[in-house]
């Protein structure tokens, strides 16, 4: 099986830089890319009955939006650069799901951008790259 890098994509500038870095490296080494977007979601959250009834439809909409607005443009950039890639979108805890995808695809590395948030911000809200580094089964490249 050909080597794969997983790139976390969320449409932000940081994730664009991560994508660019991954493309550069993939081109040089002949590796394929898996562009992954995770929609933050917890099975242990609370909703009104109305929201539950509409949940399936919302989920479909979220997946469609992720494919069209976030993964589509990223895929176009990678293809234009001549790098083979596929896309994945899933619901869940971002860092956990990225690790799962990396394991499934037998990826050798995960690329992720960062927001450059303040210390206080990280203390309060945590950071996805931060938890990913702790959990990941493979090397993680955090692109500034």
């Amino acid at each position, binding site marked *: 099986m050909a080597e794969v890098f997983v790139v976390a994509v969320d449409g932000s500038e940081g994730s664009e830089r991560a994508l660019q870095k991954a493309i550069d490296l993939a081109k040089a080494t002949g590796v394929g890319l898996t562009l992954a977007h995770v*929609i933050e*979601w917890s*099975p*242990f*959250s*609370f*909703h*009104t*009955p*109305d*929201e*539950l*009834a*509409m*949940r*399936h*439809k919302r*989920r*479909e909409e*979220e*997946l469609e939006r992720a494919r069209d607005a976030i993964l589509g443009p990223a895929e176009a950039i990678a293809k234009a650069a001549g790098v083979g890639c596929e896309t994945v979108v*899933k*619901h*869940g805890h971002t860092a956990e*799901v990225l690790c*799962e995808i990396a394991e499934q695809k037998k990826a050798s590395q995960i690329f992720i951008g960062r927001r450059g948030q303040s210390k206080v911000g990280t203390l309060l809200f945590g950071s996805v790259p931060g938890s990913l580094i702790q959990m990941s089964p493979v090397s993680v490249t955090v692109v500034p």
Partner: protein
Amino acid sequence: MKKFAIALAICLLTPQLAMAGFDDTINAATAPIATAIGALVFFKIPIFGADLPLVVLWLVIGAIFFTFRMGFVNIWGFKHAIELVRGDYANPDDAGEVSHFQALATAVSGTVGIGNIGGVAVAVTVGGPGATFWLIMAGFLGMSTKFVECTLGVKYRNENPDGSVSGGPMYYLSKGFSERGMAGFGRFVGTFYAIGIFIGALGIGNMFQSNQAYVQLNNVTGGMFDGLGWLVGIVMAAVVFAVIIGGIKSIAAVTEKIVPFMAIFYCFFALIVIFMNFAAIPEAVSNVFTGAFTGEGVAGGALGALIIGFQRAVFSNEAGIGSASIAHSAVRTNEPVTEGMVSLLEPFIDTIVICTITAMVIGTAAVANPGFAGDATGIAMTSAAFEGQISWFPVPLAIAGMLFAFSTMISWSYYGLKGWTYLFGEAAVGQTIYKLIFCVFVALGCVVQLGPILEISDALVFLICVPNILGLYVLAPIVKREMDDYMVRIRSGEIRRFKNA
């Protein structure tokens, strides 16, 4: 903008109606209706000196029947229910769909309401300490009824073209009877149920909640809101309006998140109060058991205590009413039995845990200090029991009561809506009309006194048990078959376990 204009209009118009004595006018108008409906629904047969309402007998027999018919699923299904809620069987590919936990949490915040705080006090006042025992028994048996109705809710739901789902007793009644060649009768009971849940949503799920929240608020502020029921009502109605019509999800999201913590907070402090009265615990517990079987000082003796206990339990956990199956139908699962299993935890949490704790708070307070509550009843009595040990507790209790009432109203507004759309179709205009009616009743709930209101809402809720349980009897063989088939596949490992294997 239009929405706000309507809201404003309601706010401006209603105080005009609130002339002196408005409360009394409403009371005078509703009391005879309450008496009439109550007499009809709670038709009583005298038996061994107690008056046994037929409808309570109907519920008890149903709950006992389903417990045996499903082979005590309320006992052996408990562990599996926990595993399901924990997500052990959740396929990661379905992430983002409604989880079992979410369905349970939503249904529980619909049932955990004022009934758990105030209703229990009513039960203990009327039925004596022994009513607690029967309350727990009713909760235990109710788990089986709940299992049957929620399984059916998922199995017979409708999937709408827009991807949403509509389910509940009206759907399983009409489809289930129709499968057995009784299409006409099915349509009749389905419609009857839909009307009942719609009116019930305005009573138990609405007026009773806002009424008790108001009473508690007034009580804790030392009567600051005397005669201002209409004002509190309008404020509450405005908040409900903002959520169900204005679509202000944040308010709903906040309550839905706070309510579970409030429930834990409530239980925690209740346990503290019980243990502060530790000297009274043995006597309070023995009162529960002796009261249950001797019924000392209770009208109708032990049977009287039993009747009150069962009545209050159903009022609190809604097993047999079928409302929870409306909420559970939203879960996208191929296995209806899983929702049934999860739902059997509701009467457990609601009645066996929370109601029992409330009953013990009152029971120990009564032993330690007879006459602690003065002439207070309902939620004010519970509040007095807490106050005896923790003087500031009525304040957080009032807040918890308001939040419980609010989340119950939100859940019931949805149940009533499903009854309405079953009757009038899914059109958006109709739904808005329903929601407006609902808001008006929230405000109305604060101006009517407890007596007639409790009678009306009790009666209506018990009334819809009749067609619901009838349907459950007829469809029980289907549930049994589904359940056995499901358990075979669980044991053989055909249904995969994804976590904690």
